[in-house]
Structures are given as C-alpha cells and as structure tokens.
C-alpha cells in the first residue's frame, strides 16, 4: 500500500500506534476545555483496543487528533504526541498527514447516514477513497469498490454500487463505511461509536464483520464506545476514560472481572447481566459527568464516587499498576474497589 517506508525505530516490539501523554485543550469563551488531559495508550497489529467512557470523556477527541481532524485553533496541544510505527504524527506537516489518512489509518463514524455525502453514489465515494491513495484508473477503483461491498456482506453489490446513501438501510450504510475505510488496507482502524446509531441486532452483525475483517487483514482496531456490552465480546484490552483522563486500563478480563477503579466498578454495577442466575439491584452512578471546562480538583470522579475520601480531593491519582503488570488504575482506593467487587460477584 502507499505511504512512505516506515523505519521501525524502536524495534519489533514497538506498538503500531502509540499515544503518549497527549493533551488536547480548547480555548473557548468559557475557559479552557481540557478535552484530553494526559492520555497514553497503544495498540498493536491485529489487536482490538476499546476506549470506554461517557459522552464528554474525551474519547472521540483523542481519536480525531490522531487523524488530524481536530481544527488547530481553537485546539491546542500543550504536550504529548502520537506515533505511528515510531513516526510522530503531530509534528508531521499537513501534507504528509493527509497521505496517511485513509491509507494507513482510517476512521469510521457514528452516524453513517450523515457521514456519507448524500449527493454522490456510494460506489463513487468508495472509489474516491481508493484513488486518493492508489494510482489506479477509475475503472479499477470501481472494481475494487465492488469487491469491497461484497466483502462487507452487502447483497447485490453491483446494484448497490450505483445507489445513493439514503437508499441503504442503517446497517448497510455502516457496512459501506467500513468498506470505504478498509479500501486501502489501513494498519489501524479507528471506530468511533460504530454501532450506537444502529439496532441491537444489526450491532452484533457489524461487530462480527469487524472481527472477521480484522482476522483477514490483521488490522488494529481502536473501538471507541460507551457501550460496555459491545466491548465485552470484542475487545482485547480496554481503557476506561473519565473527564479527559484514563482511569483504568487492562485486558478485557481484568476490567470486567477485577475492576480497580471506582468508576469502572460503577459502570459494571449499572450493567444488567444476562449471564448471572440472580440479578442484583442495578446501581446507577449518581450525578452527571463534569463539564470539561471545570474539572473537579483532585480525582475528577470524586463528586460522584461512593469510595471517595479526603485523599481523593487533594491531588490527581496517578495511573499505577495494580497487579505488577499491565493492569493499571488511577484510584487511591483500588483495594476497596476490589473488595466491593468481590462481594458483589459472590452475591450473584
């Protein structure tokens, strides 16, 4: 595929895509909005990383920053960087960034109806993606679009190729978007709430499709969502974000079975579990997420936290390992959270 030869500076163990201490602040009339405030994560080939959080947690902004889709005023990047195979993306000139967009890193968005241009045919839009990064004829590009539509499971692709987005159903549109995103075989696929606008049954289909495509192409997927249910079946690793920061990070098993942050615990307690014999009361998290212009002092979750003490007000807890390996949490009371979770699990 296109894209200049990448020199693997850090050796074979370097992550495919790495975000290091990224901060994205917006200057607004209401003050500085800290959309992303010191976030680090990485994803490797063939892996699925889920970034979970409520609306306003900064998860979408971090993804869009990777692609350079965040307009630079009013956004500022006080610190941090993004690395694709060791190359800094934020320091790259715009022209080079553009070469990567759609060829090495692709993104699919939440609402496929508004994300596709209504006045162009679907096939043309996919072909455009191909021709933007590959030097092929219109004919070849269209053929490729046809193949892609078939690959993502759209029936009757030859007819669909010449139709307009509003003639597709919701699920088909999202498949078309996925086809478009994968047209140039990107290394990384960023999926921003890909199933939120879809019916539940269609959601499962789309996620299964993504999984299959990932197996076929060894693509890394960064799945951004607020839906823990979707995450449970498909994610390898999970980052939980709150108020612009990562509050817990670990494998899917670790997060679901051994949560260590009060917020994660809260999220899990509010999830209905169909796989348990007895259902405990659902415990919603009281309150609402803070405005990113006015993040509370200390741990940003403390106003809503049932475990909060004075220690939580003084300074922001650091993200530290809770098991000596890669499972980390930014909570002073992670052991109390562990206990509470065990009690709850035992009771079910």
């Amino acid at each position, binding site marked *: 595929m296109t894209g200049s030869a990448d020199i693997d500076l850090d050796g074979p163990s370097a992550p495919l895509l790495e975000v290091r201490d990224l901060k994205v602040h917006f200057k607004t*009339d*209401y*003050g500085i909005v800290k959309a992303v405030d010191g976030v680090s994560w990485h994803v490797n080939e063939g892996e699925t990383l889920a970034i979970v959080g409520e609306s306003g947690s900064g998860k979408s902004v971090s993804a869009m920053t990777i692609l350079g889709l965040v307009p630079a005023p009013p956004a500022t990047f006080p610190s941090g960087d993004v690395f694709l195979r060791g190359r800094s993306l934020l320091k790259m000139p715009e022209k080079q960034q553009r070469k990567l967009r759609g060829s090495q890193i692709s993104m699919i968005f939440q609402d496929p109806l508004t994300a596709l241009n209504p006045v162009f045919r679907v096939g043309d839009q996919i072909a455009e993606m191909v021709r933007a990064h590959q030097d092929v004829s219109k004919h070849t590009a269209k053929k490729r679009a046809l193949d892609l539509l078939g690959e993502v499971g759209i029936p009757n692709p030859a007819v669909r190729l010449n139709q307009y987005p509003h003639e597709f159903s919701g699920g088909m549109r999202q498949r078309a978007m996925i086809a478009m995103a994968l047209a140039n075989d990107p290394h990384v696929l960023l999926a921003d709430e890909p199933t939120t606008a879809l019916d539940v049954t269609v959601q499962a289909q789309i996620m299964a499709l993504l999984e299959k495509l990932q197996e076929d192409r060894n693509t890394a997927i960064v799945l951004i969502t607020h839906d823990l249910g979707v995450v449970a079946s498909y994610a390898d690793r999970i980052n939980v974000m709150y108020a612009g920061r990562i509050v817990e990070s670990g494998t899917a098993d670790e997060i679901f079975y051994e949560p260590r942050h009060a917020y994660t615990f809260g999220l899990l307690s509010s999830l209905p579990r169909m796989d348990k014999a007895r259902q405990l009361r659902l415990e919603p998290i009281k309150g609402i997420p803070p405005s990113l*212009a006015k993040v509370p002092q200390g741990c940003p979750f403390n106003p809503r936290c049932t475990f909060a003490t004075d220690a939580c007000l003084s300074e922001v807890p650091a993200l530290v390992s809770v098991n000596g390996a890669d499972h980390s949490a930014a909570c002073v009371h992670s052991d109390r959270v562990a206990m509470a979770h065990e009690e709850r699990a035992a009771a079910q």
Partner: protein
Amino acid sequence: MTTSEPADMATAAQSVIVTSAHEDPDPGLAPDKVGKERSRSQFADMWRRYRRNKLAMVGLVVVTALVVIAIIQPLISPYDPYDQNLINTLAPPGGDHLMGTDSLGRDLYSELLYGLRLALIVGIATMLGSLIVGVALGAIAGYRGRFWDGLIMRITDIFLAFPYLIGALLIVRTFGTGVTQVIIALVVLGWSTGARLMRGQMLALREAEYVEAARSIGASDWRIVVRHILPNAIQPVFIYSFTSIGVAVVAMASLAYLGVGVPPDTPEWGRLINQGIEQVQVAGKDYLWIYPSAAICLTTLAFAFMADGLRDSLDPKLR
C-alpha cells in the same frame, strides 16, 4: 429545503437567506459569563440578544428616529412642502433653505420630510395589509391542509407569478393615481410571500409534539392555533414584515419615478429623484436627486438591519 411548488422556491430561497445569511453574532462583543443562572422572561432574553448586535441597534435607533420625525413632521417642517416659489428656484443648499430648492422653488428639506412621512405611512400600511391577508390565508392553508391548502396555494402561485413592480404598475394605472391605490396595489402584489411563509410554518408546527399534547388534553382547534402555534409560526413572517416595509417604500418610489402612483406634484422621494435628474444638466444640482436617494437608502437599510437583528435575536440556536 424540500419544496415542490413553483413559487415556494422564492420563499425557500428567502428563508435560507433569512436564516443563514447573517450567521455570526457581531464579533466585537464580550462573551457571556457561563454559570450565571438567569431566570428572565423570553422577551428580556430576546432584548438582550438584540442589544448585543450593533448593526441591529443602529437600525432600531434610526427607525425610531425616522418614525418620530415622520410623526412630528407637520411641526418641524420649515416650509410647506407644496409651497412653490418661482422666484427662488434651484437655490443651492444653505441660507434659508437647508437643502436648497427644487425647480418649482419648493424647499427640498421640507419635501424630504414630507416624503418620509408618506413613505412610512405607505410602507407600514402595506406591511399591515399584507400581513393580515397573508397570515390569515397562510394559517388556514397550513392548518386545514388538503383542499384549503391546495386552493390557497394555487391562488398565491398566481399572484406570485406576476412580476411585482409590473403588477403594481398595472393596478395603479387601472385604478387611478392616489396613495390609497398604491397601498392596495402593493398589498395585492405582496401578500403572497407572507402567506407562503406562514403556511410553511403552520405545516411544520402542526405536527409538533406539543400540539399533540395540547390536543390530547382536549384543547379546541382554535385554541391550539392561537395559543400554541401562532406565536411560533408568526416569527419568520414578523421578521419579514420589517424587510417588507423597506420593499414597499422602494416600490412606491420606483412607481413614482416612472411617473405613476402618487399624484404628480406630491413630494415623494421617487418623484423627487425623477425631477432632480432632469435638473442635472444644470451644473452642480446633483443634490436634488442625491438627497432623496440617500433618504431611501437610509430607510431601507435601517429596516433591513432591524430585520436581521430580530432574526438573530429570536433564534436561540445562533447564540
């Protein structure tokens, strides 16, 4: 903008202009401080938003000034605008005559004042007439739907198909000269735009959820229309009516320029321009047509600024 009728385009285009042309609030203003809880009435909110728009305030001030001047015109006019003084024709500005005299020796300043009064009377009368007819018919069409909608819309189509000025010209020629005739002509040609706007709003709001809610508690049709729909539906029409005053003033002036409409010796701005131009051959008499032209511009712009400002202040989304 999914319309399928001919003249809907004009209104649709109009409404796109109206809603999307003046997007930004005035860039030179201090931002509102977030977090301060304000519990004010809707009007106070509107007024606050309006006040921040410098152009709109200028418009408001100018329009108010013009209205006041027009009302007290008989008192402040230095001369009777009809008073001819054939000894002192074409006097330059200055001295006894602030703006000089025209070819019949009339004081230009007094003529302008009278013209303002006339323009505002005709403008506002036309606006009211068009508003009443347009809103009534538009509301019926929008609310009743189907048969009434079809019938009324065909009628508005017919009236919209007539070119504005030409239609007005014909009506005035047919019914004779006079201010009343001009007003009637302009209303006949102008009501259809308001009707379209109103109907569009009605159609949209009729389906709104709060209307269903009102119906479900047993409110009568009439009550629903008047109390719930009308206050919202009438907004675009209300905004447009300010612009339409300017349109009417210009139309009357255009007719008078062509020699039609008001009686030939009326000191009307368009008429003054016509007469002024004839005198341009005499050196240095440009002011004879420039002053009335400026008066028309000033009036039209002031109303246009107000209309813009009203639109911005009524639409909370733009804030």
